[in-house]
């Protein structure tokens, strides 16, 4: 019997990936005059994963994408994309990447098909291969029926799809998506998510920026929270959520007397007089819940109902980035939103 070797998990739980990263950056810095846009960004993104750069408007997301995709030069720091240095080998980087910016970068005066063929020509694919690739992408992105219509007549969702299709003509190894779903309706957003998942399944590395927490949660293997030009947190969605010690159990009562008795038992709990509810801190795990219920039983208290609250990425985001003011992340007061589920 051959011995089995357990495959190591690719989606790292903090383990450094052994393979060369698709994107590696250290100390990226960029300033426009007095204004510092990026203040030392470090990134290490394993090949074949989805990385989300999450942050509010003006955090520096687009600037990061522009630097990594060789559109602008950084003032300081180094970065390698697909194994090539962005400063010394920008053409090699360009040959390996595809970029879909925040605004659809297509030729409005050309048809959808002509736009794709333009890309094929610029990638020097050759006539036959270019046509085949264009056809395939038109079908895949559901725009085959409007292939001969001018891009100018397209809706926002269709423009984004054509834009992404153009990015994919060259089958890039690393794809940058700068806020790919901003301004899209929910259905187009789902389609975009599906596309990203398919890409990653095919081994492509995706670097996306977003201001939607749900999007990062849905798509990304790892998330970095960018605020004021600094990465204030990085990890998986679960790791980030675990950083907020805001899990709690909420106990509701109908009888004020029961409520008071319970408040006596759980002296550390936060009181919500108006709703006759107690907020008991805890990680929401099974053992903690059992202990809590046992204590209720032992005291003979009847609670009307209870619910478990775990912080979502919104909480993480607000906690880490503060409330618009540029304070250090560590000093910002803990914010836990009450979510009704």
């Amino acid at each position, binding site marked *: 019997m051959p011995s089995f070797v357990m495959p190591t998990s690719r989606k790292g739980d903090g383990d450094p990936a052994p393979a060369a990263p698709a994107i590696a950056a250290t100390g990226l810095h960029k300033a426009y005059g007095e204004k510092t846009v990026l203040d030392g960004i470090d990134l290490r993104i394993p090949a074949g994963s989805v990385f989300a750069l999450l942050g509010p408007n003006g955090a520096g997301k*687009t600037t990061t994408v*522009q630097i990594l*995709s*060789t*559109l*602008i030069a950084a003032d300081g720091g180094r970065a390698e994309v697909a194994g090539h240095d962005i400063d010394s080998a920008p*053409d*090699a980087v*360009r*040959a390996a*990447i*595809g*970029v879909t*910016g*925040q*605004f*659809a*970068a*297509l*030729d*409005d*005066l*050309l048809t959808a098909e*002509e736009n794709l063929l*333009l890309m094929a*020509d*610029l*990638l*020097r694919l050759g006539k036959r291969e270019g046509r085949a690739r264009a056809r395939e992408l038109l079908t895949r992105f559901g725009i085959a029926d409007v292939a001969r219509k001018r891009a100018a007549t397209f809706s926002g969702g269709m423009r984004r799809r054509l834009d992404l299709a*153009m*990015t994919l003509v*060259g089958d890039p190894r690393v794809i940058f998506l700068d806020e790919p779903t901003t301004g899209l309706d929910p259905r187009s957003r789902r389609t975009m998510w599906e596309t990203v998942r398919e890409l990653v399944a095919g081994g492509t590395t995706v670097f996306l920026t977003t201001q939607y927490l749900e999007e990062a949660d849905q798509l990304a293997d790892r998330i970095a929270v960018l605020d004021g030009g600094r990465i204030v947190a990085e990890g998986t969605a679960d790791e980030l959520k675990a950083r907020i010690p805001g899990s709690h159990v909420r106990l509701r009562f109908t009888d004020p007397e029961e409520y008071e008795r319970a408040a006596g038992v759980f002296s550390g709990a936060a009181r919500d007089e108006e709703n006759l509810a107690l907020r008991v801190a805890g990680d929401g795990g099974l053992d903690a819940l059992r202990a809590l219920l046992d204590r209720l039983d032992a005291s003979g208290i009847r609670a009307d109902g209870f619910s478990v609250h775990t912080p979502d990425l919104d909480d993480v985001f607000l906690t880490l980035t503060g409330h618009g003011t540029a304070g250090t992340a560590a000093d910002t007061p803990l914010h836990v939103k009450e979510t009704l589920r």
Partner: protein
Amino acid sequence: MSSTLGYAVQDSMTMLRRNLKHAIRYPAVGLGSALTPILMLLLFVYAFGDSIGAGMGGDRDAYLEYLTPGILIMGVASGSMSTSVAVCSDMTEGIINRFRTMNITRSSFMTGHVLGSVLGTMVCLVLVVGFALALGFRSSASPLQWLAAAGLLTAIAFAVTWLSVPLGMISQTVESASNKPLLVQFLPFLGSAFVPAGSMSPGLSWFAENQPFTPMTETLRGLLTGSEIGADGWISLAWCAGITLIGYLWSRSLFRTTTKR
């Protein structure tokens, strides 16, 4: 690398095809550039031709002969506006960022625009020449001189177009891009295109005699109507080379550094 030049040509041809597609699909833009010189020709021949002709010691037909080379020079200059507009609209519509993140020859975006514009300008000039011939313009030029005239006009078109590319790049909006080349278009008026430079007031006359369009106009006039060319031929070519170089270097540095959203 020997393939570098091959790629440069291939990419430029791809970009040229794109621009020609635009031009054929929207001919109004290109033909508009021919309309201005044709209207000017009509205006100056029929409205002012008699008196200007008389002032220069001839008649309307003599003035048509004097004017036509100047109108052709003006036609080249007015073709530059569409270049600036097309470049600017590419810059503002985001497709430029796509090109800049692709592994293509960096200058091909500009060369594609320039080649497309020069071809468009030459088509317009053929129309203008046809119009002038219909109005009664007769040239003394031999086929060789016609060829030289065409060569000179092409060189001027390249120079003016290369200068229009960076003018389009520095423009924030298409509107301002269409205004900037106005200066270039206006310049032939302050030269010998319409009246002899020597007939202007002293200060202006000095400017008119030394600005680039005057030797160009005089050379073309010499080739088409047999007037004295002298040193103007070489001066014109030197101006063309200089302006082309400035336009090329300027747009190349802008292409590298400018990002717009």
